[in-house]
């Protein structure tokens, strides 16, 4: 069943350039919003997912081209928190990437694994340059 995000007490959209510094500020904004909303219990999960989405969008999607932007939509519903991140790249073969297993000695490529570990639901558009993640507000 599709999670319900129709009623959104807190939501925002922010566009940043492909700079790590801007992604960092945005992630701290998300942390602040969750803590302020009394959702400290899920703040780590949501912030981590936002960091991974933004890093993939900047590094792989936009190839660190600072003239290209990344848009993040953050929406807090009654039951769910939804993140949507879109970059200006061509996308990637996300189905193949989701099936890929990495050695514990690998030093990169863990972002997609983290999506499935920390989000209840993950969805991509057809090309793979837009990701949507849903995290339950229920505190673990």
């Amino acid at each position: 069943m599709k999670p319900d995000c129709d009623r959104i007490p807190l939501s925002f959209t922010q566009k940043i350039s492909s700079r790590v510094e801007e992604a960092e500020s945005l992630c701290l904004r998300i942390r602040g919003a969750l803590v302020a909303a009394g959702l400290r219990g899920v703040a780590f999960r949501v912030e981590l997912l936002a960091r991974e989405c933004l890093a993939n969008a900047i590094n792989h999607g936009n190839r660190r081209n600072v003239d290209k932007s990344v848009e993040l939509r953050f929406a807090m519903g009654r039951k769910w928190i939804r993140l949507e991140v879109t970059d200006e790249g061509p996308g990637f073969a996300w189905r193949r990437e989701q099936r890929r297993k990495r050695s514990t000695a690998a030093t990169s490529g863990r972002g997609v694994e983290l999506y499935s570990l920390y989000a209840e639901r993950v969805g991509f558009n057809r090309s793979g340059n837009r990701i949507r993640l849903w995290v339950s507000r229920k505190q673990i």
Partner: protein
Amino acid sequence: MDTFVIEQKEEQGSVRLGGDLTAILVPELRAGLKETLNKGARELVFDLNRTAMLDSSGIGLLIATANSLALSGGRIKVTNAGPDIFRLLQSMRLTGRLNVTAKVAQESPDG
């Protein structure tokens, strides 16, 4: 406290992080670690006592450090991992490779 402090005495090194270990810190920390490894460190202890967030860039740096140390018969230790970070490393099957120990909860003065 600075973002990190690296100390080294012969083959023993320690890295005290002043905050999160994420993509923004990784380039600077990587350079510091490279210098420490070049000076002959064989054991590096990372103290995460003040670290609330660890992302895949930070994890990658810890693994790269562990891999470099293993080449010279050395090892990494990651100490004082908070519950969220400990669970993250556990779920990625990395607690053994990185020799991770969790932060011990402080008892209140009242007991």
